[in-house]
């Protein structure tokens, strides 16, 4: 199932300059693994040694933070949009 992944400006050089990528997978984790398979550098930027996302990496499925869903096990469907963004403090 093809999912669109929106990449923040900070990651585009590691993905050949693209702002979006498509990848297959049934969960967020599978989609990210497919992305890492194509762009190896993204794995070390986004994930720690344990394979979990680094603590300042935010991932959204259709606009919802995956920490409110099932994390990396959150299911995705064909045509869904996954957005990766750095955490930013506000106020």
């Amino acid at each position, binding site marked *: 199932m093809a999912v669109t992944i929106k990449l*923040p400006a900070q990651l585009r050089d590691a993905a050949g300059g693209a702002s979006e990528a498509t990848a297959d997978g049934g969960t967020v984790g599978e989609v990210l693994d497919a992305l890492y398979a194509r762009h190896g550098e993204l794995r070390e930027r986004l994930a720690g040694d344990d394979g979990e996302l680094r603590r*300042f990496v935010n991932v959204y499925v259709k606009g919802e933070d995956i920490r409110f869903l099932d994390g990396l096990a959150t299911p995705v469907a064909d045509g869904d949009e996954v957005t990766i963004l750095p*955490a*930013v*403090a506000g*106020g």
Partner: protein
Amino acid sequence: MKGFASRSLPPLHPGGEEIREMPAEALKCKECSTTYPLEARYVCERCFGPLEVAYRRPTHPPSDPAELKRRIQAGPGTLWRYADFLPVERVPRASLPTGLTPLVRADRLAERLGIGELWIKNETANPTHSFKDRVVSIALARAVELGFDTVACASTGNLAGAVAAHAAYAGLPAYVFIPADLEPEKILSTGAYGAQIVAVEGNYDAVNRLCTEVSGEREGWAFVNVNVRPYYAEGSKTLAFETAEQLGWEIPDRVVAPIASGSLFTKVARGFQEFIDAGLVGGGVPAMHGAQAEGCSPVAQAYAAGTDVCRPVKPDTIAKSLAIGNPADGPYAVELARRTGGSVDAVSDDEIRAGIRLLAETTGIFTETAGGVTTAVLAKLAERGEIDRGERVVAYITGDGLKTLDCVRGTFAVAEIEPRFEAFEDALGARV
């Protein structure tokens, strides 16, 4: 000791802006220590950790404490007196006078709570009535140096007003993004400055996410709390600098401050640490006590659970200025509270209203909901016996009650009478 009233002091460099060596040296990742040039960037490309300003040592600040103290005291009556500790190349020739807000001795509140010595840092005295004028002052000065021509922000309200006002003074267009359900007072007092308000259907975290995306696509826009955030955040250090100077170059034993993103909380501690490192004050960083609303308490929950993982929450509280469910500096705030012997507490909406009332009745300072949170947590700490009678405590009241008026509506009675003496006597004569 009384608070300063020194806004009329002559500027440090009358007639022009100061050209000097930039005190800052680099941006540095708080997670992996990778360094970057002093540009508009806020996130580490290697690990996505937040970037923070690193200063030249030991030349900045100057290494002679007596000389440094003289420089500060001879400086302007604004936060720019601490320019040796701030990340700008030039001290702006003119800007909305921000900082050096009163540090008010709160004896009646102290007595009510059983605290020996209590001071209120009254941030309602800033140009747009909140501490956000501090962070915006630094962000805007740096944004101009970096060549930006438009300023923007994601805001829970107070930042919106500060960005709008400082941009108006500087003559820059401003775009402020806010949750659509913000208090009307905050929307009205922002729009009055001519900023373009963008009301986003969603909570602050949705607004923040949108702004993070927009900032990646709009070159020329300085989002004060996104792409120039490392500079912006430094402004909160001046809360600590002023406190120490106003206490006669001493550091309080305990501090109570609100936590939304955790930026102010952590930067206040950093400010005290920088003054200690510079030899301006003795002692150590105060015990840092953070204050959150129960309806949005990811940092307090992490603290209580003994972890530094701040699980995001969906905010539901009257303290909208603190309603950040996904606080980026949360892990650092938890670690700081633990390291300094402080805590992070949360209070209910009713306790927040009571806190607003308590502060107003005992100090004459009317605060918005965030100040109600801070006061309520202060009361809780006192009740728990965490504050020793011999200790000096400072509470940071970060915003003005005029911006959240609905919270006090209906909490007191108004005697409505005809314009006759007898009517007055009938209504209140027995009481006065």
